[in-house]
């Protein structure tokens, strides 16, 4: 397989995640779509790492995995807090900044 095939696959997965972020109003779906986008980027990084014989891409993929894990921890905590406050996981309830 060529590098372009992997990059096209990565792009397609990224676009699926992007559509999820823009279309869904469920806050849980927002987190899921973010995970999809991060994973799509990881595939691109690993493919570039392989086809240029350089380990830097894999290193960045590791740090992206670490960032995704901490994003889940913080995001889920905020989501639980928001659900306790508003009793809803609708994205539109976030529009008010009244606290």
């Amino acid at each position, binding site marked *: 397989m060529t590098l372009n095939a992997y990059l096209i696959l990565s792009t397609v997965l990224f676009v699926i995640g992007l559509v999820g972020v823009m279309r869904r109003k469920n806050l849980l*779906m927002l987190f899921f779509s973010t*995970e999809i986008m991060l994973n799509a980027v990881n595939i691109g990084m*690993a493919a570039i790492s392989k086809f*240029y014989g350089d380990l830097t891409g894999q*290193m960045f993929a590791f740090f992206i995995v670490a*960032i995704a894990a901490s994003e889940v921890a913080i995001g889920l905590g905020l989501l639980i807090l928001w659900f306790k406050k508003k009793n809803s*996981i*609708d994205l539109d309830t976030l529009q008010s900044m009244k606290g």
Partner: protein
Amino acid sequence: MFEIIAFYLFSILTIVMFCITVFTNNSLYALSALAAGMIFISAFFFLLDADFLGAVQIVVYTGAVMALYAFGMMFFDSLSTVKEKIKNPRLVFLLSGISALIIVIIFISPIIGSNIVAQYPVHPEWGNTQDVGIVLFTKYLIPFEIAAVMLLVAMIGGIILAGKKMDVSYSELSEEEIDALEKEDSAKDEK
């Protein structure tokens, strides 16, 4: 030949799984499809000779992150329907289309760096795990430590955020006490 078949098979499976995640209305289906898609993505890492990254993908993503999501979903009514009517759907789809097109152009445009020299070259005779370990603990030691501290901070932050107002256990209270507590809470909210 094997690589081509594996690539197309896993591409189709991953794309279908992630489409299910994005378009389904049942959050349990979304979670399961996302976990399956993560497993299928690890296949690409194995195809790309990034064995350690593939193992990390399975252990961290499908083991830890998906378990955390499944655990977090217990705290709220995840099956409650969310009104997903977009006020101006045409604008949203236009914006999605334009940004998707820009991303595709960025990726498809000829790769500028044709004279790239590998900074940390791959040693096939060492194996991927040893190679990754050597680079991670020499050249990327400080980012590695910072990532460790960041994970610790995120963990403590998550515990504090999720654990707020958890000092009262509803299961140990009687019905009257719960009613009184909720009345007090709603009075506090209205203030």
